[in-house]
């Protein structure tokens, strides 16, 4: 249960909004769940709906709408490469293709060890740092700009090691 492990976090999230507007806390609570479980599980959706006095459907519908929310696990770390127009003009599509080839997966796929997914995403507001990607994982989201296939592979090694030691 989130409420037991994260009671103080939940309290400070709810304190940001008027008492009769608790529904505003739904995205922050879904992030809590996702960092904990790797996706927003059905149990978590039910718990969040109870906490906020809304229907489970009202929680679940947000997952299809917002791109950073997931209802099923993917790679533990999701490498989300911006392949939108400005980055594409700086070679981002070729970068994504080469990185996937090195990892032996298709764009949108996950490595067999379940550690790394690679996805193409829309503009991340870092067009002057192309090729770039963000890594979405248990620790939230971090940006990595001005990347090469080599630097990305080095980062992936580091993420795998972090997992071994953690």
């Amino acid at each position, binding site marked *: 249960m989130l409420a037991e492990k994260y009671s103080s976090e939940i309290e400070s999230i709810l304190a940001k909004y008027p008492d009769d507007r608790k529904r505003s806390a739904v995205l922050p609570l879904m992030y809590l769940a996702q960092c904990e479980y790797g996706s927003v599980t059905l149990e978590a959706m039910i718990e969040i709906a109870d906490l906020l006095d809304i229907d489970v459907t009202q929680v679940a519908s947000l997952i299809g709408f917002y791109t950073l929310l997931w209802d099923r696990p993917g790679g533990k770390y999701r490498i989300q490469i911006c392949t939108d127009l400005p980055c594409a003009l700086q070679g981002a599509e070729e970068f994504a293709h080469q990185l996937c080839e090195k990892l032996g997966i298709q764009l949108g796929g996950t490595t067999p060890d379940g550690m790394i997914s690679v996805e193409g995403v829309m503009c991340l507001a*870092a067009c002057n740092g192309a090729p770039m990607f963000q890594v979405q994982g248990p620790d939230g989201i971090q940006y990595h700009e001005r990347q090469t296939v080599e630097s990305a592979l080095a980062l992936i090694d580091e993420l795998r090691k972090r997992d071994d030691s953690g």
Partner: protein
Amino acid sequence: MADHILLRHRDIPDLDQLEVYLEHGGFEAFKQAVTGMTPQEVIDVVKASGLRGRGGAGFPAGVKWGFLAPGVFPRYVVANADESEPGTFKDREILERNPYQFLEGVAICSYAAQANTAYVYCRGEFWDLAHELEHKIDALHEAGLLGEGIFSTDYSLKIHIHLGAGAYICGEETALLDSMEGKLGQPRLRPPFPAAQGLFAKPTVVNNVETLTNLPPILNRGADWYRSIGTEKSAGPKVFCLSGCVARPGNYELPLGTPFRQLIFEHGGGIPGGRSIKAILPAGASAPLLPATDEVLDTPMDYESVPKIGSQLGSASIIVIDETVNIAWLVHKTTRFFEHESCGKCTPCREGTYWMHHLLQRIERGEADLEDIDLLEAVARGMQGKCLCALGEFAIMPVISGIQHFRADFEARVRNGR
């Protein structure tokens, strides 16, 4: 510009540290407002400065604040940090490197609006940045610059960070408000406008990050000083985001009215590899593309001049296109973006972006007939003027202008596939 007004961190190291910001006159404007001015006087200065919204619409900021429903409280201020337009990355630099000037702007706007609570809506991808901003806000509380009884007056203010979760449409202010209320981020029917019924159905001001960052210098140095920068109707400095086929992509703070040529060739270093420039997208994916003629390159980048040559300044995200780029490919990219980001609420946008993307995929794969180019244009024209919000209108602009100016590129894709 020798001294930056918005990107001041480029002149002053460690400006993201509160003590450094305070050493350089930080929060003097907010203090002056709270201790020496009425909210209406602040609104009047901002109106007189000619500051226009930097998120894309260019609407006069002071006028927008003046629309707040009189006598209705509580009121809210929401800073729009949902920066998601392809080619736009100015707010991120301000938030990362000059955060206190932005937060002081939020505080000034809140005082002017007589709001005691402000929210910063950050796109979810700005995860690290949002957590850093929370620390900055804590530092302001510790310094007595936020909280109860600020500057020993009865004014109190809290600023909260709210993270989105990945949806371009939440940059549209009413969609942003629905998202903040925990709903799908879909635009609302207007009226009522946010100034009458915004967040939690209360009077609300929504302003872009860059707009708010202009407020401390305007109060410190006055409306006349501000109007001396830029053009008569487009006052002040602007952060121009330069990206695409250019030697030095990046943010450039320049007066409004600077010509495209100066930005692209002097500041941006021109087109690499000796290639020639073909076209410009002056407002990310959300405005008609312009062939890079001398007339276009010599046009001043301001809210009046760019519409005169058939496009918009928008958020001033200039994407440079060189001769090697096929415009059908480019339009496929922008259309794919809008198809993905359409919120699905209104039929013309939801269906129209889907079918435009479908047709462009066919053209890109070399599976199309020449008539498909006309069909594509017909679908775009069918959406025109019929969508609930600007997203649908934005989506058709690269399509219609692309076919108008570069039809041969579309035909070449079709012929190569045959």
